[in-house]
Every structure is written in structure tokens, then in C-alpha cells.
């Protein structure tokens, strides 16, 4: 934190995203723990990007629980700080991205590991009773509990194994489409 020497790693602004030479510019520290995970699940996992302090892995939904368990047991990532649900109507899929962070290991305190998976999307959703389902990660990362409840009501992704799949923010009698789907239109827009 001192003022003069050691500008500790450049905050990820534009500087390091401009050179796009993959091999040489891939940050070594990030690559080391990503490789550890990828080597374990070589077929079912795909690296979307490795940037300074930010990494993203795409995982098949059948394997997401195993991957999360492996990460919880073998890496310092100990909590999920954000879960994003995204509607991709063109791919007929709904994506869910878990952002994992670490409080316990100071070396990892800058790192955010994103685990992304996709669930099938139905044209006429019937939340909870259609094929839009994903396994819940609540047993591994407890902090996803409310985030997953929010995604269930906002996008209609039912999380198998979640103990409390109730609505959180929406009214109990909400009977419209899940509102964060792209086909739910804002009035006047």
C-alpha cells in the first residue's frame, strides 16, 4: 500500500487486454490453478478465458457438482459472491454463472473464478416442471442459497437439491413469464 515503490500488479484496465497473443500473456498464477481443475475434468470443462485476476470455466451441467466439489476441497475458493442467470434465446439455453472468491487465502484474494453452465430453455416455460433444471451448488457453496432462489423466479431455472425453492423477490402470485427472460418485454420499450 505504500506510495512510491512496487505498483503491485496493474489493475486490470485496458493495458493487458490489448495484446492478444494468448500463449505469452496468459497470467501464470491464474493458469496454474485453472490447469489443476481442468486436468481433473479434461473432457467436461472448457476454459473460456484466463485474464488477470479473472478466470472463467464452462462446465457441462452434469459435471457442475463434481467440479464445484473439487474446487471447494482442493482450491482456496471458499464462497460464491455472485450468481448471474442469463437468457440466451438464440441458443435455446439459459446460462448460470457462479463467481467464486476466497476470503481465507491472501494469495487468492484478488481472484474471481467464474463457473458457467447452461440449462435447456423452453419456449413456454413452466418453472419447476419443465426441462430447465440444474443441480444446486448449495451443498458446496452455502452462499448461493438466495442467489439460486432469485434465478429460479427471475429465469425459471429450477435447482435440483436446493432445500428451499420458493420465490424470494417476486410476489407469490406472479403468473407471468419469468421476468428476466428476453421475451418478457418492458412496457413502452
Amino acid at each position, binding site marked *: *500500500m*505504500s*506510495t512510491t515503490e512496487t*505498483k*503491485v500488479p496493474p*489493475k*486490470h*484496465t*485496458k493495458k493487458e*487486454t*490489448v495484446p492478444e497473443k494468448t500463449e505469452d500473456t496468459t497470467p501464470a498464477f491464474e493458469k496454474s490453478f485453472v490447469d489443476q481443475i481442468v486436468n481433473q475434468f479434461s473432457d467436461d470443462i472448457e476454459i473460456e478465458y484466463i485474464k488477470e*485476476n*479473472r478466470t*472463467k470455466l464452462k462446465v457441462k451441467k452434469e459435471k457442475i457438482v463434481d467440479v464445484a466439489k473439487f474446487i471447494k476441497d482442493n482450491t482456496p475458493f*471458499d*464462497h*460464491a*459472491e*455472485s*450468481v*448471474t442467470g*442469463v*437468457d440466451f434465446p438464440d441458443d435455446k439455453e439459459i446460462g448460470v*454463472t457462479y*463467481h467464486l472468491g476466497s*476470503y*481465507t487465502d*491472501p494469495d487468492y*484474494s*484478488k481472484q*474471481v473464478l*467464474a463457473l458457467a453452465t447452461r440449462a435447456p430453455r423452453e419456449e413456454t416455460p413452466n*418453472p*419447476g*416442471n419443465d426441462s430447465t433444471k440444474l443441480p444446486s451448488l448449495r451443498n458446496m*457453496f*452455502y*452462499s448461493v*442459497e*438466495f*442467489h439460486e432462489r432469485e434465478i*429460479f*423466479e427471475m429465469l425459471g431455472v*429450477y435447482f435440483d437439491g436446493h432445500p428451499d*425453492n*420458493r*420465490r*424470494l*423477490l*417476486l*410476489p*407469490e402470485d406472479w403468473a407471468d413469464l419469468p*421476468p*428476466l427472460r428476453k421475451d*418478457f418485454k*418492458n412496457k413502452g*420499450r
Partner: protein
Amino acid sequence: MTEVIPTKQMPPGLQVENVDDRIMTLNVGPQHPGSGHMRIIVKIDGDYIVDADPDPGYVHRGEEKMAESRNYITNIPHLERPVIHDSCNILYPYVLGVEDLVGIEVPERAKYVRVIAAELNRCIYIQYWLAIYGIFLGHSTMFMWPAGDRELFIDLMEKITGARVTHAYFIPGGVRNDIPANFEDVCLRQVNYFEKRIKEYADIFYDNPILKARTEDAGVLSREDAIRLGTTGSVLRASGVDYDVRIKEPYDVYDELDVHTNVLKEGDSYARSKVPWLDMLESCNIIRQALEKMPKSGSIRTKLKPNPKGGIDEVYRRVETGRGAAGCHIISREKPEPYRLKLSVGSFRNLIALPYLLKGEKLGNMPAVYWSLNYWPVEADR
């Protein structure tokens, strides 16, 4: 308690509730249990809470949905609405994220102005929160003092931005306008007085034996649980975890300033109410350093192109707000609007701890525990 068997299968999202004569269900809220609409469904056995179920959503405004149909600039005023008292900090991750997406550099002076505005805003928020904590515990003086002292910084923000709250001051590329000519002197004077003033809170509030008797050992959150539940900000730091985004992942010029975290080990309501107060003292230090190091002249804004677009990209940036870390996840698809914008805010993340803390507490301790979570209902609902 006999299990009620539903006659037909319940649709997902609804559940059957079993009724027990011994247990009484209380609805606390949704008409302002403290500040902001929020309901806590509390089940009590005599005087003891056996179950608590937070029910947010009464101030849900669909910020994330709204963001998908507005461009990166017109998103600014509505994204600060979840916490108007802390509007600079809640905008911060969004603005940093858009800068990453669009690829612009921020002038040095603008970075310092942002840090000063963010720290002033943090104090304004914490004072408001503290005032309500005071009134929650029946301590009227602690409502009056912070509510009055925060006017000092509101005046400063009004000088900078022209608005008392809802500043919409940060924009991608810098800040909206420069600080007025003699601002440094006025700011320094106000900050010094403010610091002297909030130190007096110790005498009347934090060292007060009645407050201590009410809040110590109420709602203890252990270090392990704080990590496991993914809590953040003052809740986390009151449980002995040294984590502050300003230090661990410094943004703008926080790495050039001497910032300290305040960590307490107890994890009870008293510690959780004390950490934000210590944070305010720290904010005063940061503001003084930033005023000293700030370049005295220079650009405060890099001009954006009209209708800025990101590529096919995504970005996740986080900052420390008054309530803890706030993350902004923006997914861009070569459009002037974000494809998806997710705000992961401290209030929402800390809410998960509420049922754990309330179980086994006396009902009378509920306000002390609930508001010590540094929870802002409107922010949690977004």
C-alpha cells in the same frame, strides 16, 4: 406437530405450512421494520425466536431488467437508486466495468476525485445507517447526532455535484464535472471537524453500558460461518476476517493511499455496529491523503464516443461500498446496451445470515441483530 399432507401436489414456489399451537408467527414488516420495506416472518416460542424467514422484494424495481434496454450512459441515474445515500459507491463497479468494456483510460485527477467522493458518500451512508440503529435501540440522541452530522458531508457533495443525494456523479471515463475552486480547503476543514465530532459518539453510544448490555453476545456469527455464508463488508470484518476490496483488489488510486481495515473478532451485534463507525474514521484519513496527493489541475474526464459499445465480452468488477463488496457483472454483445447486467450487492449477500443469527435469540434482540447486518432493503431488492 403432525405433518400436513397436501391433497394435491403443490406447484413449485409454494409450500404447505404446518401449524403448531405453541408456536406463534409474527410478521415484522413489510411496513418499515427499520428503514425500507422488508418483512421478516418470525416464529416465536414464548420469547425465543425458533425460526426467522426474511422476505425481501417489496421494493423490487427491476434495475437489472431496466438496464438491458438503456445504453451505458442512460443507465447511470437509475442504477444508483438502490442506495441513494451511497450513490457514488453503488455506481462505482458499473462505471469501472464499462471502462473495461469500452477500453478507456481515466485521468489521474478524476481517479482522486472519485475516491474522495466515494469516501464522503460512504460516511454519509454510514451516518444514516447509524442514526437508524440508534432509533432501533431507543437511543434518540444517536438518531439526532449522526443525522445532523451527515449534513456536513451532504453539503460537500452538493458543492461537488449539485445534488444532495442521487448525485449521478461518476460516469465511464471520469466524473461529470470538476470540483469547485476552493473545495480542498472547505473539505479539509469539514473532515477535520467531522472526525472530531464522530469520536464523541464513543462517549454517548459505543461506551454506553446500556448499549453494550443489549448488543454484546447478541447474534454471534463465528468466523467460519461468516466465510461459509459468504457475508461481506462490516459483517465479515466484525467476525475476524480481514477482507476489504479497497485493499485486497485496489481500484483507481486506492493502492497509492494508506488504507487500513478495521477487524474485530467478537462477531456479535456490538462488533458489527462498531466496524462501520471505525470505517468512518478511516474514511477521514483516506480523504485527507487523497486531497493532499490529488493533482491540482488536469482533465477530469475522458470523452466517450457517442453511444459507446463493448465487444462480445464480459466483465466482473467489484468495489467496497458502505455495506460490503458490490460486484457488477456486465455481459456485452456489441450493442450500446448491456446484454445482461447483474449487481451483486452487500445487502443481498448479508441477508442470508439473518435466519442463522436470529434463531435462539430473544424477540427483543431482533432489531439489534437485524440492523447490525448493515442491511439496506432497497439495495437487496434492486
